[in-house]
Each structure stands twice: as C-alpha cells, then as structure tokens.
C-alpha cells in the first residue's frame, strides 16, 4: 500500500484528487466510491453522519456533483462523484457507523456505487498508478496537506 505524506493511498485505486475521493471498478460498469485518507484527515475528526439523498438513488449524477455529504463536529462537505454515473446504492453500514468512512476508508467504509458505462474513457480524468500518485504527492505538497 502506498503512503504519501503519511496518507495511505493504495496504488490500485483511481483518485479524484481535487476532492480526495477514490474510485474502484467492481466489474461490469459498477464503480465503488469512497473518501480517501486525505479527506479523512481534512474532516477534522470523527464523522457524525454520512448521508446520501434518497431521491438520488437511481438518478444520473454528473462528475463533480455531490453523491453524499459528510459531517463531523468541525466540518461539513460533499463527496463528489469522481465520474458520471447512475447512483445505484449507498453503503448501509454507514448509517449505523458513519465513522467507518474514515477508519476503514478502502474497505467497509465505502460510500456509494455508481453505474458508469463510460468508465473506460472517463477514468482518464482521474489520477492512478505510480505517475498519478506522484502527481497527487505534488498536489499535497503544494496544498501543505499531510496526514502525519
């Protein structure tokens, strides 16, 4: 697992670095989405709520538009869609334990799944692999962000 400035960023994921969101192809055109460890750090503590608007389930979400919101005592903000797609489902485990999105961000704490038929072309807009992580590192350095 790759570690950049103290932030765990696995090499096999795709990153929407602007908003610190990860995406992972799950087979077919299904894409799983979650917050990465940088987002966890920036949220400033334990999450009190991760909410997906019920009316958005089954709806087409444009890239960059919010698929969920996260709340901690110090932060409130969106989780944007890394690529366009139809919102298929939210992770129900986060209802009981929203902080899973931070404590197990790449496992049990995933946030939503999208059906993204254009993934193969849209993924070009995300950071991935050694080159992508190098670019991500440069961004974190420029923004003065560290998980240490």
């Amino acid at each position: 697992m790759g570690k950049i400035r103290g932030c765990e960023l696995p090499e096999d994921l795709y990153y929407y670095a602007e908003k610190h969101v990860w995406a992972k192809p799950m087979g077919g055109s299904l894409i799983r989405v979650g917050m990465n460890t940088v987002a966890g750090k920036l949220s400033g503590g334990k999450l009190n709520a991760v909410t997906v608007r019920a009316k958005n389930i089954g709806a087409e979400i444009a890239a960059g538009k919010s698929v969920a919101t996260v709340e901690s005592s110090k932060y409130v903000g969106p989780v944007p869609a890394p690529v366009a797609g139809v919102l298929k489902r939210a992770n129900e485990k986060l209802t009981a334990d929203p902080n899973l999105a931070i404590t197990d961000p790449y496992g049990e704490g995933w946030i939503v799944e999208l059906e993204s038929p254009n993934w193969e072309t849209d993924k070009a807009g995300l950071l991935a692999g050694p080159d992508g992580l190098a670019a991500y590192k440069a961004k974190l350095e420029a923004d003065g962000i560290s998980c240490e």
Partner: protein
Amino acid sequence: MEPDKILIMMTSGPDTPRRCATPFFMATLAAAMEYEVTMFFTIDGTLLLKRGMAATIFPKAGGKSVESFLNEALEAGVKLTACTASMELHGLTQSDLIDGVKMVGGASFWQMSEGAKTVVSF
C-alpha cells in the same frame, strides 16, 4: 435538472452567539447536497454581515468563530442577501457589509419564497 432551492431567514445576531453557527452549518450542508441555497439576513442577523463583526462572535468558547462558519457557507456557494429595512434599522450601508452580499427589499423575500422548495427561519 434544476436544483431545488432552499431559503434560510436569519434573524439572530451578535446578542445570541449560540444561535449563530447552526444556520450557516445547515446552509453549507444543503449546498453540499446540491441545493441552491440563499440566506436572507434581517432584524439582528444583518449585523453578522458587518465587516469584522463575525470574527468577534464565538458560538462556543474556544471554538470556531461565526466568520469561519460564514466563510464555509460562501465557499460552498451559498448566496447572501441582506434586508434593506434592517440595514436602516442598524444604520448600515452597503459599504459597511462584507463583499458579496446582495441588498434586497422585503418583497424579495416573498418572491424568493415562492421559488423555494423549503424556507427555514432561525
């Protein structure tokens, strides 16, 4: 698809610091949910938009200032409007207010209400 609109009327001001964080928090949250959010400041709420004022108000001792809640709302895309009559009440002019605030009359509040899915007052 046109985003749903939310209108928040803010009447609380510097005399009641504990009432001055949640309205901004809720506005920021709604914007993060892709609602189009407008806050309408009137009565004492208008004073929060006076230059420098929000930085001096702390809803919780040792916590964040109202200014940081306000800035988060602005960064999330929340629009701020101030009631002209309340500005007169407090002897304020547009130049006394922070940048980005639109001055509107009372009738605008009703017009904005008509277009909003939800109206909340604090």
